[in-house]
């Protein structure tokens, strides 16, 4: 965290109450930028995740949205223990799992699984599907090798694959089928949490729906908890109980799905929602789009104060000076947090404000 920022104000309610499976507190992940050459001096940091807190209640889905470069995937990898954390804390099921060694992380690996974005890149092209799905059993030795094939074929059937394709290579499957292979692999150890890192963004729309329905069926059957990363707002609305919006390594807004989609308080959330394509042409015509200028700034040298201020239609002097805390704004539900000095009010025309700039 940068020095000037006051730590986010988080109530227990905002962090999901009692039955929380995953709790992330003030998580910071910097990637050092080093000079090339023999003596590698650190000349800066990519502030990929900079003080993020969130909580996921057991059995629910938290949708994590934000544009490319907002730190969603880095956050996911920190929670999964794939990247060491710079500072902050990750608690899973009551245990602190921050920066555990590989050996000590091993029991938690069973409970935390990932589904990856690229169904082509996340399956080893040289290994048979049966071996890929059976990998978790082989690594954790939960199933003796004599029963492995039967177990894998059960999993394949459960995710809608033909168990007879056990000996095929990933290249012989379509994108949707490959993503089902990824789901089967993630499901093998009966995890508690599955981190879905843009699991459907590489699939075409009809296949997306199939995979999403599969994920929600599995959630019902196995009581899974999902951290669901996406940049497609409609997908997130479909699957999530709660939504967290990230911008440049920070949480801009978070709250229950209904509240965030109906009454966004952060101008960035409002802009994102207004940019989502609407299927209804009448609604699309009457909609006011908030056009954001510029690109997401470099996380090596983030803007001062509120990180969104250079692109914000409502930005004022204060925004570039003071970092807004993530807090409950007046009139909002106790679970609805916004990091903004001048939150959007009901009926406000942001599009007009954006046009004036």
């Amino acid at each position: 965290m940068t020095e000037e920022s006051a730590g986010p104000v988080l109530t227990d309610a905002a962090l999901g109450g009692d039955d929380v499976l995953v709790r992330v507190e003030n998580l910071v992940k910097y990637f050092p930028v080093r000079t090339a050459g023999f003596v590698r001096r650190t000349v800066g940091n990519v502030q990929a995740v900079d003080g993020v807190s969130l909580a996921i209640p057991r059995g629910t889905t938290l949708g994590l949205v934000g544009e490319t470069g907002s730190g969603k995937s880095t956050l996911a990898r920190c929670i999964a223990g794939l990247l060491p954390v710079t500072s902050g804390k990750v608690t899973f099921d009551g245990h602190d799992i921050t920066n555990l060694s590989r050996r000590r992380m091993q029991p938690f690996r069973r409970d935390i699984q990932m589904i990856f974005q690229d169904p082509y890149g996340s399956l080893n092209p040289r290994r048979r599907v049966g071996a890929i799905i059976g990998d978790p059993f082989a690594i954790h030795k939960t199933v003796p090798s004599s029963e492995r094939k039967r177990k894998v074929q059960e999993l394949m059937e459960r995710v809608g694959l033909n168990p007879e394709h056990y000996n095929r290579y990933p290249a012989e499957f379509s994108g949707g089928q490959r993503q089902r292979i990824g789901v089967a692999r993630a499901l093998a150890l009966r995890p508690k949490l599955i981190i879905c890192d843009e699991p459907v963004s590489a699939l075409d729309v009809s296949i997306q729906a199939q995979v999403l329905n599969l994920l929600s069926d599995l959630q019902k059957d196995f009581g899974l908890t999902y951290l669901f990363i996406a940049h497609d707002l409609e997908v997130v609305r479909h699957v999530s109980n709660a939504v967290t919006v990230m911008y440049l390594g920070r949480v801009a807004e978070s709250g229950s799905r209904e509240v965030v989609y109906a009454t966004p308080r952060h101008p960035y959330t409002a802009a994102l929602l207004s940019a989502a394509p609407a299927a209804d042409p009448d609604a699309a015509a009457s909609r006011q789009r908030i056009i954001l200028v510029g690109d997401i700034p470099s996380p090596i040298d983030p803007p001062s104060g509120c990180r969104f201020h250079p692109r914000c239609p409502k930005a004022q002097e204060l925004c570039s000076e003071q970092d807004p805390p993530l807090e409950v704004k007046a009139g909002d539900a106790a679970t609805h947090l916004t990091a903004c000095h001048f939150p959007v009010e009901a009926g406000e025309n942001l599009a007009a404000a954006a046009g004036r700039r």
Partner: protein
Amino acid sequence: MSITEVEFQVASVENAPVQAVEGRSQWQLTWLRLRSDKVAIASLIVIVIMFALALASPAIAALVHHPPNTAYPLTGENVAGNPVGPGTNGFLLGTDDTGRDLLVRILYGARISLFVGVVTTLIGTVAGVAVGLIAGYFGGVIDTILARFTDAVLAFPYIVLALALAVVLGPSLTVIIGVISFFAWAGIARIVRGQTLSLKEKEYIEAARSLGAGPFRIMFIDILPNLLAPVLVLATLYIPNAVVFESTLSFLGLGIQPPTASWGNILATATNFYTVAWWYTVFPALALLITTLAFNLLGDGIRDAMDPGTERLLAARRGAKKRRAQRREMKGAGPSEAFPDPGTQAQPPIGLG
């Protein structure tokens, strides 16, 4: 999308369930492609014959009644004491300077040459893969040390070092195998390291880590299968190098010692007699040439067969224009959910110059 293409796609979707359930592995596909490469198959046959002859050399020696180290001063040398030519007195390829049967000596030499070539390549490949995987996967200080050491070995004037070692340790088969193996691993290690560096960034490696796989499981179960293709090609191409290396050492008198026959030491003495006995130089040199050429051509063939791009090339060469056109149309239609193209996705590019 043309009508014919629609029909073609529909047909292929209908045919899909009839397809064999067993997936065709890269090795099966490689073999299918290699089979249509006439040069590679001819080379393979030559190599098999060479190995067969080398193994059968005692039998052949018994057949012609000429043990390899027995001199025949009466029948094997002419009145001037020089070797006799091919076909004389039952010596099919003539004799050498002491009147020994050249054919039998060349066949016994093949045993040594092929043995040294294969064994040193095996040792070098295993060591090179291990060093390359460890350097590439762990990175950091380990990589720096191993990679610099590899570079140092590659930069060495190896003949000089080999000669020095042979002189100090005394020439023997073990020393030769040791010396050649020592220089065999570095080239493979460098290629494997480079490939590992790029492979370890793949998402499926991250997936393996997220499952809790340890570094050695990732190296040998996840990365190694992706490396086998380039390693196999490199190993095939290294065998002739090792054969020539052994011959060089023997030629210089620091390898296999007479009277044991080796192509190198036969050639070394033959150079004194080339004015009176051309066969003495030509036949062992020919054996060396044919063997190394066959291995090199086979290596090239395997490399082509492992590269999915050459399938199209071979198809074009055979004049299968129709199939090619269809494939191009399929490509143009983009990756289809119903009909993935296994050929293009199955193989990572092989980074070989």
